[in-house]
C-alpha cells in the first residue's frame, strides 16, 4: 500500500517536474527561435561573470527573478479575490491534464509492474477534455476581475473562441476513438504499436489524417497563440485578458500558456504519433519487418520509449513556436468562421466516413 502510494507520488512528481521544466525551456526556445526566424540575436543581455549561455541565463534566470521582484498590481476597482484566483485557474488545468498521458510502457522492477502513466482511468480522454474545458476560466475571470474594458473585450473573445474550438477538437478526436475503440490513452498507444500489412506502424496520423489536421488546428487555437491570439490581441486591445497583470501572476499566465503547449503536444503525440512507441520496438527489443531481431535489455527498451516520447513532444512544441512566428494573425470573424464553418463540418464528415469504413471492414472480414 505505502509502496504503491510512493510510486504514484514519484510518477506524479516526475511528470510535474518534466512539464514545468519543459515549459520553462520553451520560454528560451520561443525567444531564441523567434530571433532566429527574424534574423536577429535575441535575449543576450543578462550574463553571469560574462557568460550569457546563448540566452539561457537571460530567459531561465534573469526573467523569472525580474518577474517575481515586480510589484503585484491589483486594479483598485477590480475584484481582489477573483483577480488572484484567475492565474491559478489558468495554470491548474494545464498541469493536471498530463496525469493521464502515458509517457512509457510498463517498467518491471523485480516482480512489480509499474505502468508509466500517473493515473490510468478508463475514461482518460474524457478526463483530458473535461480539464481542458476548465482552462477558459482563467481568461474569463481574470479579464472580468481586472475592471478594464480591454481586458473585458479579451475575455469575451477568449470565452467564445475557446468554446468554439473545443467543439471541433472533441469531434475530431471521435474518429480516433472509433478506430481504436477505447477511451484509455495507454490502450490507444498500445494499439498504435501494431503493424499494418506487416511493416507500417498503425499510428493515428496514418489512419486518421484529416482528424490530425483538424485536431492540430483546434489545439493551436486552444493555446491562444498567434494565428489565434485574439484574446490577447496585442495590436488592438493592449494585452487582452492579462492587461492588468504583472509580476508573479503574469508569470503564472505565461507558464500556463507554455504548459498548455506541452500538454497539447503530449496529447497529439499520444493520439496520432504513437505515444512512446518506437517503430518495430517491442518489449524485448527490435523486430524489423525484414526478419532481423535485435534483443535489448528491459531497461534500455523503457529508456528508448520514454526518450522517444519526449522527443516527439519536443518536436511538437517546436512546431508551435515555428507557427507562431511565421503565420499572420486571423481577424476575429475569420477565427469564428474557420471554427464553425470549416473545422466542425469536416470533423462531422470525418466521423461519418470513419463509421462507414469501420462497418464495411467489419462486415468484410
Amino acid at each position, binding site marked *: 500500500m505505502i509502496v504503491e502510494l510512493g510510486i504514484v507520488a514519484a510518477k506524479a512528481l516526475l511528470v510535474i517536474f518534466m512539464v514545468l521544466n519543459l515549459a520553462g525551456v520553451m520560454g528560451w526556445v520561443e525567444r531564441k527561435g523567434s530571433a532566429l526566424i527574424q534574423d536577429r540575436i535575441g535575449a543576450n543581455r543578462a550574463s553571469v561573470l560574462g557568460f550569457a549561455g546563448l540566452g539561457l541565463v537571460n530567459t531561465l534566470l534573469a526573467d523569472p527573478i525580474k518577474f517575481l521582484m515586480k510589484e503585484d498590481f491589483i486594479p483598485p476597482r477590480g475584484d481582489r479575490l477573483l483577480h488572484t484566483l484567475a492565474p491559478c485557474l489558468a495554470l491548474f488545468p494545464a498541469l493536471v491534464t498530463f496525469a493521464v498521458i502515458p509517457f512509457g510502457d510498463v517498467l518491471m522492477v523485480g516482480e512489480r509492474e509499474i505502468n508509466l502513466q500517473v493515473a490510468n482511468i478508463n475514461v482518460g480522454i474524457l478526463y483530458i477534455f473535461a480539464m481542458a474545458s*476548465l482552462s*477558459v476560466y482563467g481568461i474569463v475571470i481574470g479579464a472580468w476581475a481586472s475592471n478594464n474594458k480591454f481586458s473585458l473585450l479579451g475575455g469575451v473573445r477568449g470565452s467564445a473562441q475557446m468554446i468554439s474550438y473545443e467543439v471541433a477538437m472533441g469531434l475530431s478526436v471521435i474518429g480516433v476513438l472509433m478506430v481504436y475503440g477505447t477511451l484509455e490513452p495507454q490502450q490507444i498507444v498500445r494499439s498504435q504499436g501494431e503493424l499494418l500489412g506487416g511493416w507500417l506502424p498503425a499510428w493515428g496520423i496514418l489512419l486518421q489524417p484529416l482528424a490530425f489536421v483538424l485536431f492540430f488546428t483546434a489545439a493551436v487555437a486552444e493555446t491562444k497563440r498567434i494565428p489565434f491570439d485574439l484574446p490577447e490581441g496585442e495590436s488592438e486591445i493592449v494585452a487582452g485578458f492579462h492587461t492588468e497583470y504583472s509580476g508573479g501572476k503574469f508569470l503564472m499566465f505565461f507558464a500556463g500558456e507554455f504548459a498548455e503547449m506541452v500538454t497539447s503536444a503530449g496529447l497529439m503525440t499520444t493520439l496520432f504519433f504513437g505515444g512512446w512507441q518506437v517503430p518495430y520496438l517491442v518489449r524485448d527489443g527490435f523486430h524489423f519487418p525484414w526478419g532481423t531481431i535485435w534483443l535489448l535489455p528491459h531497461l534500455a527498451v523503457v529508456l528508448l520509449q520514454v526518450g522517444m516520447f519526449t522527443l516527439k513532444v519536443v518536436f511538437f512544441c517546436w512546431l508551435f513556436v515555428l507557427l507562431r512566428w511565421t503565420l499572420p494573425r486571423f481577424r476575429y470573424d475569420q477565427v469564428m468562421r474557420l471554427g464553425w464553418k470549416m473545422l466542425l463540418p469536416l470533423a462531422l464528415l470525418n466521423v461519418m466516413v470513419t463509421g462507414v469504413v469501420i462497418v464495411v471492414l467489419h462486415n468484410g472480414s
Partner: protein
Amino acid sequence: MILFFILAALSVIFSLAVVFQRNPVHSAMALVATLFLVAVLFLTLDAPMVGFLQILVYAGAIMILFLFVIMLLNPEALERRRVFWWGLGSTAALVLIVEMAALLSAIPAREGRIAAVAEGFGSPEMLGRTLFRDFVLPFEIASVLLLVAIVGAVVLAKREL
C-alpha cells in the same frame, strides 16, 4: 466517509454562495465550484463517465455561456435585497429540507445499504450499451431537442435575421 462529508460540506457552502452572493459573477463561480464538487461525488458513486461529462458540459460549456452573457450585458447595479421575498424563499427552503429529512429518516437503515456492483459499472461501454439499446428513441428525441434549441437561440438572439 470523511471524503463524503468534506465534499458535502463544501458543496453546501458553495451552493449557499450561489444564492447569497450579490454579484452575478461570484454566484457563477460558486456554482462552478458546486458543479465540480458534485462531479467528484459522482466519481465516488462509480459514475466516472457521467462525472467527467458533468465537468465538460456544465462547468466547461454551460457556465462559460452564463459568464459570457453576464459579461456581455454587464449589468452595473447590484440588485436590491427584498425582505419579503428573502423571508419567503428561506422559509420555503427550510420547510422543504425538514420535510425531506422527515421522509428520509422514515426509511429503515437497511434499505439504504449500498450493494456491491459488477466490474465495469459506469464504464463507457456499459453506458453506451444501455443508452443505445434501451433508450434509442429518447436519445433521438434529445438530439432533436438540441437542434430546436440551437435554432431557437439563433432566432432569439440575432438582432435582425
